[in-house]
């Protein structure tokens, strides 16, 4: 699997120092999908686990609403205990599923990053050296921690949905 990032760019040469060509959005998307498909089971697993974790997290406020209804209707205390137990179970499920989904999503991110940086490195080592040096070898340091760690973090922490109240 080789990530081909080749798109002819005319503007690059105009800006004094030549730069490496920048792939179009479509090209980037294609490479992205190829990388994801390379890890399809991991990708599917992380999507499923994330959905399940969200469902478990949403269950908690729904059950809290039930508790309010119960109090308004002056229900029995055994019903209250059942609801509270359900809340605790939903919390447990949310915890386990969040851990699993977090692990799978970050693992997917790390695998994809590793595949990508190895592809880029291989490509760089085999590309025309004058061109690479013209752009400055430093622009192309795929193992550069900022790139790998940065992407890992972005994968690892989706924006946390803050509680509406």
């Amino acid at each position, binding site marked *: 699997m080789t990530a081909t990032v080749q798109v002819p760019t005319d503007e690059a040469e105009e800006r004094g120092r030549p730069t490496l060509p920048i792939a179009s959005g479509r090209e980037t998307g294609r490479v992205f999908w190829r990388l994801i498909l390379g890890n399809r089971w991991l990708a599917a697993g992380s999507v499923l686990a994330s959905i399940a974790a969200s469902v478990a997290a949403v269950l908690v406020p729904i059950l809290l609403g039930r508790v309010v209804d119960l109090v308004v209707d002056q229900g029995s205390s055994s019903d209250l205990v059942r609801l*509270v137990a359900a809340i605790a179970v939903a919390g447990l499920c949310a915890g386990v599923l969040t*851990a699993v989904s977090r692990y799978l999503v970050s693992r997917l991110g790390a695998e994809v990053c590793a595949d990508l940086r*190895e592809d880029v490195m291989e490509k*760089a*080592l085999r590309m025309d050296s004058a061109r690479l*040096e013209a752009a400055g070898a430093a622009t192309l340091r795929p*193992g550069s921690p900022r790139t790998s760690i940065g992407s890992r973090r972005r994968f690892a922490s989706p924006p946390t949905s803050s509680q509406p109240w």
Partner: protein
Amino acid sequence: MPVAIGTVIDRAVATSDLSAMAVSVIAVFGLFLVLTMAWRTGFWFLSRGTYEEAHLMRMEAVRRILTGAGIQTDRQTGELLSITASDSLAAAELIQLGARAAAALVGLAVTAGILLRIDWSLGLGLMLGIPILVLGLNALGPIVERRTAAQQQAAGLAAATASDLLAGLRPLRGFGGVTEGVRRYHTTSRTSLGATMGAMKASATFVGASTFTTGLLVAVVTAFSGWYALQGRITIGELITIVGLAAFLSDPVLGLADCVFQLAISRASAARVAEIIEAPPRAEIGSEPARPGALVLRDVVSPGLDGLCLEVSPGELVGVASSSIPAADALTELLTGERHPHSGSVSLGGTDLAEIDHGSLRQRMLIEPHAVHLFGDTIGAVLDTGEGLDAGEGSGSERVTAAVRAAALGELADNLDHELLDHGSNLSGGQRQRVALARALLADRPVLVLRDPTTAVDAVTEQSIAHGLTDLRCGGDQITVVISTSPPLLARCSRVVFVEHGRVVATGTHTELLTRSDYAEAVLR
């Protein structure tokens, strides 16, 4: 927010008062507006603080690595790069953690206060329960920190391999090592991936545990407040406020837990940045100013040298010839200060080199090593060592012309704006060597030490450089030492010192020394 909604339910919904409802809706809207604006302003301040701090830390680390005697470190260049680039940012995120932890604590305090007013037993329970939960999660911190440190280390190694391979790309292609290079990078990349997995497992467990404890907290609070509401001890509005606050509590509690987790990451990074900033200098830095005078090596013993004595007085141009590479290396490194003699002394103007302040020493003495490093995008930028080329000004451009002619830069000097690729890689070896020589001559230091300055140029150019160099450096009381086995260069030196078996075995002019068979063999290869 939960308080406001609880109040709205008690005052407006429960009483079905339309005007109260309208006021409530506007009030809730205003509250949201304040929340958003406060978040936005806070984010701006924190980001700015973080990036400025990271910049300061980066500059400090780079200054420590580059200036003075440098630092003692076992880390590879790539690792130093990753530390200055990414660890300084991660360490600076500590600022955000402080602000976030403070915000979370204030949120908790207000919540606890409100809960205490509604029902003291619930408030007290939460105030005791939450610290226990956070402390429990805190215990997981060191595990995450250890894993993260391992991961950062592995990421640094991968970066180091990548930068080594890219830097040596041409030779790598030359001997057909690309496939092996790709294989090695693959191996380090996978090691890095393995370490990342470890860190991720730890962080996922941590997040899961904190989500679960929050759920448990909500369940317990709901059980008690639901029970009290059924008994009529608290109103429906208060129940909603309490349950809402319990759900809201997850935010500051998770926030605190996340702070603990991020603290582990930041600390691992900060430790690495601190290691660079606090690293001992590679050599002791002296404080004496550099004084004019002779360059003297007395009975120096060091690997490659065995009791070397050498004295170069101002105005002299001395050649040091030796067939032994360790001896030449030892001499170069002793003068640059990378190495200290086991015994004996190296001094300039009567002061031991180790006692001279580095800035002052660099102003007086320049050592041009054999390995050429060119910095800058054009020939002009490479030649400029910080004092400016002053092109156009009479004296400035004359200096440039003289240095450029002495180094036989020839065709390259016609256009100082000639563009260079990364580290001058579009120049030939000989051109690079000549540019470096011109740079050294242009810096015009009272003491100049050149190590094999003409190994990569042809015989005609070598002859021309020998003439240019000696003409430029022979006037006044400048000291010039040429460590070389090049006959044209040595022939132009006022005195040649022949070093064999780590000590001076003969002194004289090149022609005089040529009568010795061992000298002739060393220089006429």
